């Protein structure tokens, strides 16, 4: 309220906030105390990656992922190999394919909560054929929520976890 003399910290009254606004801010900050993670929380207990086996061939699985993402109101951004841009065209491994998809409303909502989350957007599923078996790999948002350590992101990460598992399950039915 008064600022702190001899430091760059000035009174927030000078920034146009009322005393009520400042009280609200203090109250809101104090409320964080109730939102701390439970002691001993270890995000590493969450698997790093969501992994699903596909009973289909690579191309069919890619088509399934695209259809499932669209069915969840996502827009397909692009489909590329994992090695795209790292190797010359034709030299990249065509058996490792990434499907990128995005829901711009969700993206905007996530960035508003925490701009760091853009690091893991847009959403993606990697489809890999190795040893005759096709598998799907996706980030685990529950694992990532531990990295960000932002309580406001937890709900969003839980929702994204459900969305990813829905898409992965539907793609491999």
């Amino acid at each position, binding site marked *: 309220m008064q600022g702190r003399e001899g430091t760059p910290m000035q009174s927030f009254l000078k920034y146009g906030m009322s005393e009520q*606004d400042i009280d609200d801010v203090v109250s809101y900050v104090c409320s964080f105390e109730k939102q701390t993670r439970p002691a001993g929380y270890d995000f590493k207990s969450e698997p790093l990656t969501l992994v699903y086996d596909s009973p289909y061939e690579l191309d069919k699985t890619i088509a399934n992922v695209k259809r499932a993402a669209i069915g969840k109101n996502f827009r397909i951004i692009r489909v590329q190999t994992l090695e795209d*841009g790292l190797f010359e065209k034709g030299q990249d491994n065509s058996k490792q394919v990434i499907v990128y998809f995005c829901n711009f409303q969700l993206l905007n909502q996530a960035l508003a909560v925490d701009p760091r989350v853009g*690091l893991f957007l847009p959403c993606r599923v990697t489809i890999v054929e190795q040893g005759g078996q096709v598998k799907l*790999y996706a980030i685990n948002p529950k694992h990532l929520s*531990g990295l960000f350590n932002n309580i406001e992101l937890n709900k969003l990460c839980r929702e994204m976890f459900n969305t990813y598992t829905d898409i992965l399950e539907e793609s491999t039915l």
Partner: protein
Amino acid sequence: MMFIKRLIVTIGFGGLIFFNQSIQADNMIIARTSQTFPEAMAELQGLIKTKGYVLSRVQRVDIGLTSSGYKTDKYRVVFYGKPSENRKLSQRYPELTAYLPLKIAIFAEDQDTILVTANPQHLSKSGDNELARVINQWEADLIDIFQQMREGH
């Protein structure tokens, strides 16, 4: 109350960035530079290359947003990797393919530019020394790149 919430998030995030100018967080590596967005982007790409990585793509997140009617500051995700290393790891550890190539988010905030990436240590597996060596190198490179970005201005 929405204004208050936004203010708190801004103050909280700003504070986080401030402290990360000198201290590397455990899980996230963050840097703020007073360089403009284009300057910071150019320097970041140069530093990534000097560490022996190849830039595979720059994803323009803001384009997708603005074309859908949203407005946001400049926001990109820079993907990079070492081709042979990427190939070897993705075949030996296919579960890592969800996180490869490596990436750094870079976005404008007022006059400054902020860089964010996840500390690659979260990808490590206990008892796997070969993977640990690779991840330790990634982490060291990132810390050096981010430090040089902070010193850029």
